[in-house]
């Protein structure tokens, strides 16, 4: 069985993976270890969890403009999220996947959802993010 959620394409691309949800914003600089993809901020609810290969679902980014650099490094070492789902994507967060596409030829699609759709995603679900077609498919 499949369930489809409509969204808005931020960075195009298609990826599938296991969902990891947080209601807290994420700063890639300072909260994600660029070598391992582990959340290393003890105050974050995803502390010690890995973003590598996950469909990472968080409301919006925060923090330093260095976040884009950390995202590029995660892609270089193969520890980047497979895709990102937000309610609101700011330029700093979008920059990492955009540079990654043109520099390493790797896609990290980003899709944004309205709050109600955002709530439908739960940690552990397996989903396909098709940002190009503006849709997320939940595989049950």
């Amino acid at each position: 069985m499949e369930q489809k959620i409509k969204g808005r394409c931020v960075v195009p691309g298609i990826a599938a993976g296991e969902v990891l949800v947080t209601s807290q914003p994420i700063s890639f600089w300072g909260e994600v270890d660029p070598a391992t993809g582990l959340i290393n901020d003890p105050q974050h609810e995803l502390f010690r969890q890995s973003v590598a290969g996950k469909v990472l679902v968080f409301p919006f980014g925060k923090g330093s403009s260095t976040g884009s650099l950390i995202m590029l490094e995660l892609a270089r070492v193969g520890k980047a999220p497979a895709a990102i789902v937000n309610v609101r994507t700011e330029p700093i967060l979008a920059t990492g996947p955009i540079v990654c596409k043109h520099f390493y030829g790797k896609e990290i699609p980003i899709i944004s959802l309205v709050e109600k759709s955002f709530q439908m995603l739960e940690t552990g679900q397996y989903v396909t993010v098709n940002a190009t077609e503006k849709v997320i498919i939940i595989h049950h």
Partner: protein
Amino acid sequence: MRLTDEEKSILDGKQGEAARIALSVLVDLGEVFGAESLMPVSQVHIDATLYMVDAGLQFVEKLANLGAKTAVPTSLNPSAIDLVRWKELGVSPEIFPKHHRLAAAYIKMQAIPTWTCAPYQQGIIPRFGEQIAWGESNAIAFANSVIGARTNRYADLMDICAAIIGKVPKFGLHLSRNRKAKMLIELKGFTGSMFENDAIYPLLGYLVGEIASDQVAAVLGMPPSVTFDNLKGFFAGAASSGAVGLCHLVGITPEAQSLEMCFQGSQPENVLQITPEMIADSEHRLQTVQSEGIDWITTGCPHYSPAEFMRLAELINGEKVHSSVAFWAFTSRTVYAWIKENGILKQLADAGITVFTDGCPLQYPRESWNFSAAMTDSAKFANYCYSQTGLPSAFGSLADCVDTAVSGKIRRRESPWNKK
């Protein structure tokens, strides 16, 4: 996005691979944020200047090796380290070549080696209304809010792309309509003597950042006597606790001389207040140090100005930094040359204060220095120190920092919001 024939030819690779990559990145960003076209910028300030991860070094070296050059005057943020006195700073000889390679790649592209996070105090300073592309959170907030130049919060890697093309997508804070304030923050219950204490400005900024988050706010009640350096500390604090790109200070921000100008004729969506009690609370929250002992005092986040060094020299006058304490101040090479020539540097050195250039205290090589607790006059540093370096810290006025440096233990003078 509507592109000119020249831009289309760049995307087709007719002006080289570096320009193609740089413009592709800028166009994609513009598409994400609904920009109709690209627009020229007159200057760029690059944030991604400190070696942190290999991906950043690879990207910048690739652009440089492809023969890219900056199309507009481009200043550079600090390196992670003092590029001249890196050994004294304890940087390992294994890691130094990477810092050096990153610096060399930017210089090869003809960026200006300013190595400073306060590019608005020396270097290529924009005028009111000028369209620019800056990285570095404190500099962005300062350029938009104090000078009235116009920049978005450009991310690392996007900044060098803008420098190579000399253009950015036309969106966000480049456009007047997006510079309209949404919330009003009133300073309530503050007295004139409170504003005479320098420590109030970083703390006020820290609170404003927490409240405003990524929204444009207008702050009512800042005194006309506020100095350039006070505003530097304010916006560094604000841009560390919130994603502040622009914050109108009514009567100070050039385009915000009245409330009506801030809100472009409409009403605030919400009105909030900051009180002196909140200042005391923020000072308390910025303190992660549990014990009384302090062995590292760090100032110059953002980089110190000549006026700030003069004040430091006045305060330390005749005293010596305690043998258990390292006192480091960070600045640009320009300011360093000035204070060397007028003798302030020697006064500071005689008192036991070391002045480093180029670098960032948040990037100090902590494996080489076993500090246990820091104190600073920067809300930005205090905010990031514990989370970035694992080192507990305390915030205080510069006078508090000097008293603490001399005694080796936290000393605080009475402040109007913290009566003894």
